[in-house]
């Protein structure tokens, strides 16, 4: 008798499960509705950019290391052709690239070369060059959560800012550009 009751109880709980799952989902939606890309502190900010030696998209036989960019302020933008939100930040990058303020270097992350090239051809190429991180190993060193992410690197090769998610007009105007100006004056 007691056992039967327990089984019935279990069954009732099991049938409640879909409702509970939905409740969790719905609460995420509520929070998600008025969300904007947020900054989170990264352990790498204030530290030197990790070492890398990787090929570039245009010249796969050519290997680039971080010394190539020493002495300038530059942006490292992690992107991939499979990344949907990259498409939303892309026009901003294109526009910013036109000002020639700072070079934007792409980090093509876990992508296939032909796809990546086709993507740039289709949406335009804001990058001075794109470094290819096909297996995502450099991405691990960089602590890439996902794509897109953007790193701002100073003349001394130290990461001064990390932006997670697509760049928006506000974040570019209010955070990234002022920081670039600041870094350039150092």
């Amino acid at each position, binding site marked *: 008798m007691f056992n039967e009751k327990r089984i*019935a109880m279990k*069954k*009732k709980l099991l*049938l*409640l499960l*879909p*409702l509970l799952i*939905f*409740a969790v*989902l*719905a609460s*995420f*939606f*509520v*929070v*998600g*509705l*008025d*969300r904007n*890309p*947020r900054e*989170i502190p990264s352990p790498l900010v204030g530290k030197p950019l990790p070492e890398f030696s990787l090929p570039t998209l245009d010249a796969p036989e050519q290997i680039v290391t971080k010394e190539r960019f020493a002495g300038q302020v530059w942006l490292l933008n992690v992107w*991939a052709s*499979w*990344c*949907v*939100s*990259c*498409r*939303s930040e892309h026009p901003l990058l294109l526009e910013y690239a036109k000002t020639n303020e700072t070079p934007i270097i792409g980090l093509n992350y*876990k992508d296939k070369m*032909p*796809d990546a*090239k*086709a*993507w740039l*051809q*289709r949406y335009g190429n804001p990058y001075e060059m794109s470094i290819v991180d096909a297996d995502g190993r450099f991405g691990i060193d960089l602590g890439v*959560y*996902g*794509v*897109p*992410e953007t790193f701002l690197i100073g003349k001394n090769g130290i990461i001064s800012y990390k932006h*997670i*998610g*697509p760049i928006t007009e506000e974040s570019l105007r209010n955070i990234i550009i002022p920081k670039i100006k600041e870094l350039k004056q150092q």
Partner: protein
Amino acid sequence: MIPEIGQFALILALILALVQGTLPLVGAAQGIPVWMFLSRRTAQGVFFFLILAFGCLIYSFIVNDFSVLNVASNSNTQLPLHYRIAASWGSHEGSILMWVFMLGLWSCAVSVFSRHLPEEVVARVLGVMGLVTAGLLLFLLFTSNPFERLFPVPTEGRDLNPLLQDPGMVLHPPMLYMGYVGFSVAFAFAVAALLGGRLDATWARWSRPWTTVAWCFLTVGIMIGSWWAYYELGWGGWWFWDPVENASLLPWLIGTALIHSLAVTEKRGTFKIWTVLLAICAFSLSLLGTFLVRSGVLTSVHAFTTDPRRGLFILVFLGLVIGGSLALFAFRAPRVGTQGKFEFISRETALLCNNILLAVACGTVLLGTLYPLFLDALNLGKISVGPPYFEAVFVPIMALLIVLMGIGAIARWKESPLAELWEKLRAPLAVTVVCAVALPLILGRTHWQSVALLALGFGMAFWIITTLIVSVTDRLRHLQGGLWYKLQRQPLSFWGMWFAHFGVAIFIIGVTVVKGFEAERDVRMTPGDVISVGDYAFRFVGIEDRQGPNYHAARGTFELLKDDKKVRNLYPEKRMYFAHGMPMTEAAIDSGFFGDRYVSLGEEINDGKGSWSVRVYYKPFITWLWGGCILMTLGGVLALSDRRYRVYARKPAKELLAGHTLPRPAH
């Protein structure tokens, strides 16, 4: 004047829908026949006013009435007539109106084709659909009025998004929405069954054809969407695991599970609770898809409109519909669940596992789609999950599913002795293994990785085909007479299963060959250049300007060559639409049974020689993807044409109930 009539029609439809959603439900609960009888008439009334409203919107688009905001922002005097009509569902407001319109259409269809159902059931089903209709109409009228006026009236409208100016995009949304909304019928039947506490084989038989129709529409809708992405986005992909694509795949997966589970419920009287849950989930996911696309919660290429207020409204609506039905499920489902018995090795088990796998596949896709949202909500940043994740989790689940698909088609109901099953599966297994390993080697692949992937794909396809052959011979063995006579004796529902599964095999062959043998070249070409891809070559003849109705185009001419002989000319275009200033790529495709030759224009290269960057693809067997989807749909149509449905449709309800109801569960 016309837009006001449309608006007024929407308000009347809302009032009627509120009546449809309340009185019949109360009537069914209290046993008031007059109130129950209201359901059919009100459903038809709602549909009448929705036709009127939708007609008014289309009319405003046809006559270029730019005093309507919706028309002014999505149409243009230069836009050709057929795209002006299509533009009426190209915008957010219009597409929601179409959603409601189709809900009205389905409700009306239920009211017409339900003469054999007990009045109580009809009242409940239409009542539930009426509530959903009312909710969406409120959403339409309060947050996205398609008839909103604009003053001062502009002399010219903005244009329809160039991406949507395409025959595929004209057909895609109506088909997809017919599928999405069609699941509302199965949903309403499930909720009605929970409310009435009666859930039996008859219930499953009533829901089945509706679910199958919706599933067919959804399959075609997804196929057209994929086909559109393939030729319109200009880089030869056919599925991007984009949130919006996933949103249409989710209800399809659950809908597929539902079709199978309904079959078990009807034939064997088991899986009832599970079937009801699937019916609720299929429609919930359809609503969720709409929410994800329309609220801007996830960024996507397809999300044309984003407005948090709308998102909030849809979210509340979702909470009420999904939360309400799941709560009802949690409290009422225990009453309906007497499960029939079956042995471990049986068709029931195979179908149960198939259901679980489909649900798991749906769960992983849902997780991948929403994962960025979860991270964002937990303040971990915005990211996007790409094809690497989906391919890694989706393919293994599908492989398991395919294995079961072969077994399930052959296993017997209730109990299938292992020895007998093995006897039947031996030959297919042997053929599958031999072919799967031999074929990649014959086709000249030697690297173990590509051999393994091809073998997996071919193996799945051969497994389905060989087991399907066995399923036919198995059925014919006991019959006397000629082959054709014996084949004709099989019910159409069997052929429905057969063709749908065969379609899956064809689809898998398509995917396997495309993935394994596609070739692409991305090159700079000067007029006169020849580039070869696969067995074919393309000669770039030149570029000329062409004037379209609302765009300029640079039209390239390419000669497609095979063995140095010209096959035909191809004309890819790069279009610049006046109103948007947005360049669009129109690929030129030479399509054939064994594959496509595909060329699209990149950018002009300013070297004075008229060079262009050009992409050419050879896509072997890609047409088999669409062919597979069409076969699956054909399977659905065959199942619908089965004699049983036609016979039962004519029989009066009482006779049906007497003959086929399983004992009512004890309360």
